[in-house]
């Protein structure tokens, strides 16, 4: 059974992106280094006697992931700039949605990989128990990440050819990252304190609603960023 075209084409675009990223490894290594460094900054900046690590951990986690995500977003359309490959994508008989979804998927895998490195490190540096709560925590992380990355992927298509593209992207996308950041942070706290999933259902619903709204909106608006 052949998968619907959109799925196939999105996967083609995403796998091409991921092949390029993981072959050169520069981007993923830099992002991982960035996460480690930010965690270190927080470690040394923190007054250990002031607040318990477990109370601070959610905020630190989400701030770190937010910054790492912003840095990672620019690469998606940067790839297409070199030899104007984007024009080739637009000429091909694929829907514009496939391009957006492919980029979104590649970005999610990329940011997800960075998160896989960051969360254990956070647990290590701040001596926070994470493993028993891994599954619900993963759910929160996935929902929040989709929220950040969906908007960021859309905006990166617009900023990639501007002069200070990375900085501009960060400025544009941060207001859109704050609500999911807040909800995820609020949800992570109780989880790390061992509270059940039912306690944070409200936050999860907000995150899911945000994701659905903004992925949908991005799909609708993406063609306007590439069509003339």
């Amino acid at each position, binding site marked *: 059974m052949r998968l619907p075209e959109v799925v196939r*084409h999105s996967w*083609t675009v995403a796998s*091409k992106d991921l*092949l*390029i990223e993981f*072959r*050169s490894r520069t981007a993923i290594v830099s992002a991982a280094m960035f996460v480690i460094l930010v965690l270190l900054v927080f470690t040394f900046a923190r007054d250990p006697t002031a607040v318990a690590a477990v109370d601070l951990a959610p905020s630190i986690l989400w701030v770190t992931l937010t910054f790492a995500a912003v840095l990672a977003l620019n690469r998606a359309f940067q*790839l297409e700039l*070199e*030899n*104007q*490959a984007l*024009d*080739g*994508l*637009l*000429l*091909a*008989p*694929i829907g514009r949605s496939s391009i957006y979804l492919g980029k979104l998927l590649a970005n999610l895998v990329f940011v997800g990989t960075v998160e896989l490195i960051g969360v254990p490190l956070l647990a290590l540096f701040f001596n926070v128990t994470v493993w028993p709560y891994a599954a619900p925590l993963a759910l929160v992380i996935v929902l929040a990440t989709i929220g950040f990355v969906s908007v960021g992927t859309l905006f990166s298509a617009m900023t990639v050819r501007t002069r200070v593209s990375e900085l501009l992207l960060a400025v544009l996308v941060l207001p859109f990252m704050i609500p999911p950041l807040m909800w995820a942070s609020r949800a992570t706290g109780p989880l790390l304190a061992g509270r059940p999933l039912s306690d944070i259902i409200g936050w999860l619903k907000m995150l899911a609603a945000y994701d659905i709204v903004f992925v949908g909106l991005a799909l609708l608006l993406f063609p306007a960023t590439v*069509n*003339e």
Partner: protein
Amino acid sequence: MLRAEELHHSFASVRALDGISFSVRPGQTLAIFGPNGAGKTTLLKVLAGLIRPQRGHAHVDGGRRAIGWIGHQAQLYNQLTVKENLRFWASLYDVHPPGELLARLGLEEHADRPVRALSRGLLQRVAIARALVHNPAVLLLDEPFTGLDRTAAETLGRLLAQHAAAGRATVLVTHNVEEGTGLATDVAFMRAGRFVHFAPRAGRGPQQVGEEYRNAIA
């Protein structure tokens, strides 16, 4: 095979296309000559479906699936190999790269080299391979001879002749009258969004067409 009807398109206050109508039949190669700013690239983009014209209509039999584009930019990924690039582009058209494509362009020994390691001439040939990978019925070429080395230029000429011989259509835009004339079955001069000349080449050589062009456009 390809048809344009009363195309009009403006950018801000500039009229890029001001009433263009023509058609290209199978086996024909239309060469459109014009100075910079005449609207040639815009016309090609409308034909390719990249721009929707403000007025008028363009139609290519088979749609985007049937179109191959060769322009100044290679549209390749530097970090992927030649084979990987071709496979990627082919899959977007739901085909596999034809086995003999690399051979036709003399690229077999470079198949597994990353594109960024290729010389300019080789890169150009890979770009041509990319455009042909899905066996397009219509070729659109935007200043294809700019910066081509001799081997690549000869290869391109040969391929275009084969393409036409196979009963396919080509539209080629360029400001280089000398190089374009030899390949054309029909010739057009474009200025300020309009055709000021449109006729079969009918045995005219590059010199003659060049002179007529300079007279028409001056």
